[in-house]
């Protein structure tokens, strides 16, 4: 079975919050090496783990994971503002 690659913003969100891989791993209940694999997009998480990660960061799951390459967060914010007419 060939799975699609899942892109994510875990490293951006983790660094933004100033936590280490070990701290994040402890919070989401995985080995710290798994966080490394996730950040390098070498491992696609289960739906359960994906939800645990997005719940930990307090953001919608689609902001953390995507099946297409992630755009910079600044671009997302600009698009969001232009949609709202700010």
């Amino acid at each position, binding site marked *: 079975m060939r799975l699609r690659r899942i892109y994510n913003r875990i490293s951006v969100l983790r660094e933004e919050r100033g936590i280490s891989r070990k701290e994040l791993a402890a919070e989401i*209940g*995985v*080995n710290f090496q*798994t966080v490394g*694999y996730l950040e390098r997009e070498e*491992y696609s*998480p*289960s739906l*359960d*783990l994906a939800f645990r990660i997005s719940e930990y960061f307090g953001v919608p799951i689609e902001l953390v994971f995507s099946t297409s390459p992630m755009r910079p967060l600044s671009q997302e914010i600009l698009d969001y503002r232009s949609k709202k007419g700010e």
Partner: protein
Amino acid sequence: MKLKMSKSTRRIAVIVNYGCILMILVFFGIGKYEGWSAPLVAGAIAAAIVAVVSFILLHMGTRLWKLVHTKVDKLDEREVQITHESLRNSYAIFTVISLLVLMCIALLAGRDDSFLMFIFASLLYLAHTLPSSIIAWTEREI
């Protein structure tokens, strides 16, 4: 402390470890049937030492032994995935090697009776059907 080894180093360690185990078997076989000599004993001891050292470095140092011997509920999903994949491959390799060894033993012993062939065929059948039998046993819908 966990030992860091690159993939290529780990592969070399795997080859060295199994190579030494094979050498010990060969030395032991020669010693048993041809008689033990000093170089043979020295070779067997050297192979045993290298086998133990490579085992300690590869399996204990990298904590891979712990990974594959830990209960599934103590592992995270990536670890479960890689151990399951490893067990899947191990099952296939172990089956082939076991059956080949069994066949060689039967041939070397000069026994070609039908009962031995029946055991061989039964084990081959078991090895191929066991995974699907387990699924048939455990799953509600397939």
